[in-house]
């Protein structure tokens, strides 16, 4: 599915989306809050669910070609995170739901 579909299906709140991001492909999902773990295992074009909201998630997302970072559990991103995400063209969304809820809703759709 593409990012637009993902945002609609999971009812995500877009925080920052790069130009043309809506049509970006999302083909996998990854849950992780330990950055080294995400850096080692997150698939490219994945949606990354995490509670980490600090600026370093942007570099990790960029380095792994993550399609979108989704902050879960109602965690709000720090302003520096948003600024850096905008500058690096990394897509960030947020949701009040847990990563488990969101993944269950995604089951079979990716």
């Amino acid at each position, binding site marked *: 599915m593409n990012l637009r579909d993902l945002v609609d299906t999971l009812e995500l709140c877009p925080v920052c989306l790069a130009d043309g991001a809506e049509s970006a492909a999302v083909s996998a999902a990854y849950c992780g809050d330990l950055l*080294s773990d995400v850096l080692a295992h997150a698939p490219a074009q994945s949606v990354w669910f995490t509670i980490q909201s600090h600026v370093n998630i942007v570099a990790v997302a960029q380095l792994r070609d993550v399609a979108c970072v989704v902050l879960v559990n109602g965690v709000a991103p720090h302003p520096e995170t948003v600024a850096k995400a905008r500058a690096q063209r990394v897509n960030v969304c947020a949701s009040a739901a847990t990563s488990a809820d969101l993944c269950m809703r995604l089951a079979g759709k990716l």
Partner: protein
Amino acid sequence: MAELRERQIRLVHELMYQIKVHEVMTTPAICFPSAATFREIQRSMKERRFTGAPIVDGGELAGIVSIHDIITAFDRGRVDEPVAHYMTRDVVTVPQSYSVIAASNLFHKYRYGRLPAVSAPQSRRVVGIVTYGDILSHLLMEVNAIAERFEKQEAKSALTAAAACNKLRFELAPDNFDRAGSASTTVKKHLQAFGLSPAILRRVAVICYEAEMNVIIHSLGGYMEVELMPDRVRILVVDEGPGIPDIAQALEPGYTTANEKIRALGFGAGMGLCNIKTSADEFAIRSSMETGTEIEAAVMLDTPFVGDVIQPPRRVRTDPAPEAASGSAT
């Protein structure tokens, strides 16, 4: 295209605040005493090609006469009379020290063709004349100059990048989480231009990021060098200490010396060195308590570059402009 136009409009707007009236005005202004007749002024207008003139008596602005007033004078048969009784006395002026945006606003408000520029706010001493055309042509010159400077800079930085293109060096400051990961993303973007496969890029990215974070989190500072060689990407990371007492232990997955605060940020999973080792084709680590730690890793390329010189692939241009010399490495 729309974005470019928007940027250009913003630049022009900025320039209008920066450029001052005295920079664009014509000086000295052609002025006449109020005793001059319409015919005299009209003759001057024809010879010297202007369409309006301030009327100045004893060094002070007394009024203004435009070609419109001249035509009216001809129409009403007053052409040989002094302008004193018929000139417009309420003259809108602009101080020479104001930015042209002030003049532009006045032009917009009053729709006059020209504004006398005065020496200072509240002064009646005319120092020049400014028209909207003056503002526009000056803006055009400025925008041109800026565009040319920008193009020269672009060419220069492309040349510098091409000259040093095979080796990148980054100084890594300890504890600097704001810049954390920036070296790795720069490396990735830089190597992307050489057409390396996404898989290779990702492995290099992991190695750079983990090594960079280790220096930032655990050391007193250091540097990272990334070199593109014909058959591999070589990464060297050196820090100033404190050194790793037991390297075998450090290499164990899950072993970390990171503190509570670091771990709360999601770092300190104890996977850094393992990740580097897994992502690299060649990996070596040396450490001493006196000098610090050194990590050298290599990722072999799928298709080695042929020849002595590694060239980034030619960038495809959509317009038919000729290729710049800056595209090749030296």
